[in-house]
């Protein structure tokens, strides 16, 4: 499934970017360059061929691991991407950590003590977290922690603690969604008979909740983790711009303003590739934690 989706993505992105009005060779050369130079650029970069031809050539090279070169620097797209992607993944990782640390306990306690003050407060906070757009949250965070309190840097990635504000900004929405999801799936599980059986056996509440209920309650949460990931890498585009975080999202935004088409198409394809790989890993984790699937695989093998 991975390869067809990637080819489809490259097809869509390539055509959107290349069918756009405006002469890319003219934009690269600038307004004041004479027609001859523009023509040379056009030939050098292959803009004199038709879009379909260009796509064919592009894909042929892409399959050999060559996504072209930036129009402005001599870096290849893959080099530029590899330089930036660790930062985006780092941001993504800490956003997930932030989301999990808060959403898991709040979701579980809210479900166990349904309609308590803690539950109500938690749900109001979760709803607020979903509703606040991440770029506003980022600005407010800079305003409070960087400009007023001067505790944390407002951008860049020079210090180890530079990642704190961006990952909170990036992770809040996911945290809020996860909290609600953990709560509702926990509520469903906790009413089931086998939980009552576990209690009847005389197990203490901690074992019942953490061992028996949580494992089943986590299944729908993990299933949607892939969607959260796509959301997170998407919102990283905005977060990286606010915090001048040198990741792929900012690279794409910068390349778009320079109309560095090769870079844009290449980065979007590569980002989708990375997301697909991580989704695959999540599917494998899903198999590990859900005994129902594990056993059905076992049967198939036998």
């Amino acid at each position, binding site marked *: 499934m991975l390869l067809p989706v990637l080819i*489809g993505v490259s097809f869509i*992105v390539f055509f959107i970017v290349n069918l756009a009005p405006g002469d890319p060779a003219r934009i690269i050369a600038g307004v004041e360059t004479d027609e001859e130079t523009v023509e040379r650029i056009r030939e050098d970069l292959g803009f004199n061929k038709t879009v379909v031809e260009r796509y064919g050539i592009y894909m042929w090279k892409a399959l050999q691991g060559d996504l072209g070169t930036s129009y402005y620097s001599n870096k290849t797209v893959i080099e530029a991407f590899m330089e930036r992607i660790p930062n985006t993944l780092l941001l993504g990782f800490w956003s997930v950590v932030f989301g999990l640390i808060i959403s898991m306990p709040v979701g579980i306690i809210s479900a166990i003590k349904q309609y308590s003050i803690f539950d109500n407060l938690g749900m109001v906070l979760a709803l607020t977290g979903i509703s606040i757009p991440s770029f*506003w949250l980022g*600005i407010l965070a800079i305003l409070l922690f960087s400009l007023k309190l001067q505790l944390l840097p407002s951008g860049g990635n020079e210090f180890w603690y530079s990642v704190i504000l961006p990952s909170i900004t990036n992770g809040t929405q996911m945290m809020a969604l996860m909290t609600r999801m953990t709560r509702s799936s926990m509520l469903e599980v906790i009413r089931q008979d086998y939980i009552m059986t576990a209690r009847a056996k005389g197990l203490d509440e901690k074992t019942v909740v953490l061992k028996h209920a949580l494992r089943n309650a986590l299944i729908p949460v993990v299933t949607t983790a892939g969607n959260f990931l796509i959301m997170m*890498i998407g919102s990283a585009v*905005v977060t990286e711009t606010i915090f001048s975080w040198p990741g792929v999202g900012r690279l794409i935004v910068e390349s*778009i303003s320079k109309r560095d088409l090769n870079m844009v198409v290449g980065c*979007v394809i590569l*980002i*989708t590739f990375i997301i697909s790989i991580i989704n695959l890993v999540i599917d494998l984790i899903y198999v590990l934690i859900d005994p129902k699937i594990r056993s059905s695989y076992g049967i198939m093998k036998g």
Partner: protein
Amino acid sequence: MNFKNAENRSQVYETWRRLKKSRTAVIGLILIFILVTVAIIAPLLYDYNNDIIKQNIKERMQKPSLAHPFGTDEFGRDILGRIIYGARISLIIGVTSCLLCGSIGIILGVVAAYYGGMIENVIMRFSDILMAIPSILLAIVIVAAFGVNLFNIIIAVGVATIPQYIRITRASVLTVINQEYIEAAHSIGAKTPRILFRHILTNCFAPIMVQATLRIATVIAEAASLSFLGLGVPAPTPEWGAMLAGGRAYMREYPHLVLFPGLAIAFTILSLNLIGDGLRDALDPKLKK
């Protein structure tokens, strides 16, 4: 007596009856009602040319006061007025984008489920591909390529709606398509479009409505992020994301420049989410009494 009308009315009525019981949904509805009303009567409150887009350097960067409840921006324009006019843009983008792209998704979803086979395969792979690209990235690419204007923005933020509706509609059509009443409709000679739209699609009402409210919220947020990145409705049109981006440079001394536009976005998304939550509970067959 016309049974079909009685049926239709009772479904909408039933939904409304249960929606009214949900406190969150009612709060959400009231908030959205206020927002829409203010957006509609905006021309009565402020003159677009004089108050909203005309620069007035003498009054720039004023703190909130009686004359300017939310203060003025870096060009001396009243922030409250710009937020009210901004609501119009956001609501137009949210609603038209969901109507347009939602309809495309619904039609493709119905076609996929009804015809199956090769057609279904092609449509579902298409939706897989669209879902694989982060939606904001796709929106940025589309707007950057085709230029910044209202229509392009509506399409750009809406594209991600299409695969979601394809999936939802296909799933809900598949649950009803093999039921006996569809067979009965076939046997009395009803035509395919009639069966699709009158008998099948009316049964997908619940998930489509819930998704619509939540999608409008997402689309409004995404359009604001586009503006924030400088890819939104061009200046001087008042747009919440662009107002935030503009005020950012001065926020240390004048936090009100970034406070109020952001509050407006959060307020809108919050009310839509409240309605969406209430609607989901009201339409959930599991909770039916």
